[in-house]
């Protein structure tokens, strides 16, 4: 079949909500957009392990230590199946990792913020995983099959993480004065970066329109951000801590909360590499990769020797 016919068939499938699978024909730009998005997501899971791993050795109880370990391990698992989903689009994991380590690929900017107290383990679960879920639940219906299936699995675990995070904060907020202050301080630091997780405003988001047309994305950045603010305000009230935004108030007419302007200057700067932890996070990944090089070579060499033995 020639290309125009293939394209027609592809558009048809998208229109009828039929999943695109790895062996199906797809436009180059569709493939590129998916690789960019899925690999970025995979990198975010891997880099995202670092700020939380930072508190594993200092978790305040054995139960919390075990839960946090399991959570960070889940993130490694998510990274693994997202890399696998991206590999179905004809790119290798090595290539993707190389793009990350050479700063050609991005990861979610939120992980360039530091984790400064135990409360941050709660806030990350509540807000960061919460924002991720908001973004990701619609992706369970994404037009590309392997991505949609990976997201279904990931979303189940993420909502578990979010509940765990909220429960950490609930414990702090029902605890001592110091604990509640720790929770408030953490919310103060993570609120705005969490709102930034939804990306630029719709009019400044270059990929949104095409992505929505191809049914990868289902809602715009601003739609999702609004939904997030509405949900979080009520959850913050239950905790009894205050969202650090003087302009946050209910708008009867819109049926939504109004909220203040994001500091876009900060947003673009963190993306450019000027966030508080950009250099450290990337360096940690580079070191893990470089320190692991001899291990990977040894495993490969040993496997080769075994193969030779079997062939004899």
């Amino acid at each position, binding site marked *: 079949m020639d290309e125009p016919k293939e394209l027609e068939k592809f558009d048809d499938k998208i229109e009828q909500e039929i999943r695109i699978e790895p062996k199906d024909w797809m436009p180059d730009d569709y493939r590129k957009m998916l690789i960019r998005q899925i690999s970025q997501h995979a990198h975010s899971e*891997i880099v995202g*392990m*670092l700020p939380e*791993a930072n508190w*594993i*050795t*200092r*978790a*305040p*109880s*054995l*139960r*919390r*230590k*075990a839960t946090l*370990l*399991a959570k*960070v*391990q889940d993130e*490694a*698992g998510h*990274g*693994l199946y997202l*890399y696998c989903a991206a590999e179905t689009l004809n790119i290798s994991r090595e290539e993707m990792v190389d793009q990350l380590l050479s700063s050609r690929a991005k990861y979610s900017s939120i992980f360039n913020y530091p984790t400064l107290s*135990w409360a941050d383990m709660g806030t990350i679960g509540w807000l960061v995983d919460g924002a991720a879920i908001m973004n990701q639940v619609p992706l369970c219906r994404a037009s590309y099959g392997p991505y949609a299936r990976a997201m279904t699995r990931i979303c189940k675990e993420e909502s578990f993480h979010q509940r765990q995070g909220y429960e*950490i904060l609930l*414990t*702090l907020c029902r*605890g*001592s004065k*110091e*604990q509640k202050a720790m929770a408030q301080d953490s919310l103060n630091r993570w609120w705005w970066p969490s709102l930034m997780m939804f990306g630029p405003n719709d009019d400044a988001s270059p990929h949104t329109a095409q992505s929505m047309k191809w049914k990868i994305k289902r809602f715009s950045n601003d739609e999702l951000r609004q939904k997030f603010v509405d949900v979080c305000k009520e959850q913050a009230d239950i905790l009894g801590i205050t969202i650090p935004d003087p302009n946050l108030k209910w708008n009867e007419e819109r049926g939504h909360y109004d909220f203040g302007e994001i500091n876009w200057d900060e947003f673009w700067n963190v993306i450019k590499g000027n966030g508080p932890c950009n250099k450290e996070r990337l360096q*940690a990944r580079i*070191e*893990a990769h470089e*320190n*692991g*090089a*001899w*291990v*990977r*070579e*040894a*495993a490969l*060499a*040993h496997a080769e*020797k075994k193969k030779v033995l079997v062939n004899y």
Partner: protein
Amino acid sequence: MESKPTNIDKNNLVNFTLFLADSSLIMGHRLSEWTGHGPMLEQDIAITNLALDLIGQARNFYQYAAELITNQKDKKITEDDLAYLRDAHEFKNLLITELPNGDWAKTIGKVFFFSTWQFYFYQKLIYSSDKQLAAIAEKSLKEVTYHVKWSSDWVIRLGDGTEESKKRMEKAIEDLWPYTGEMFVPADFEIDLENSVSINVSVIKSDWMEKVKSVFQEATLSLPTETWMQSGGKNGVHTEHLGFILAEMQFMQRAYPGLEW
């Protein structure tokens, strides 16, 4: 809150249980330092699994020890009191568990020597006259069987991999070997409980040595020659490393005493 819940305790059963708990916790704590930094994603996940298993084992032992102490003292003691409010000299873990992770070879060596010891130890402990300890041993044995398999495979891969990996594995073994002796020298609390609650540790030494020999042979590695063996862990005399582990691990409980987390 009392900061030294075990000082009052002369009970061998408690000390024995704490020895098992502390060894699993410190080993698990060290392994958890790898999370997010493993040499490949699959192994990052695997080593985190080991850490989780070990911390789970530690919790079972601590909960039992806490119950014993609570009954004796008529004062509520929890697993967290035992892990977070005792000082270094009260910890009874094997020294090998507290040594720094070093490179992947050193970590693999630590896991292999320790898990193989745990495997033979628990294999006997399931017949303990203490039903609770027997049950924990039985549950843990399944996990430890996998830890031995996983670490043996890695010892073989690194020993019989590249020239560099062999060199690193040899160096790791040389550094770790002096810390394997105390596994088979019973502390007083073990002697008292021998062949009833506890096991006869000298009996498992030959099993352990056989397993090490056979894995080393496949890995084309040689056994270290006789050397001076370090000891002290079981009696609370540690390396300089433990103090730093505890400073980090206990920080929250020390800075904010008596709170729920």
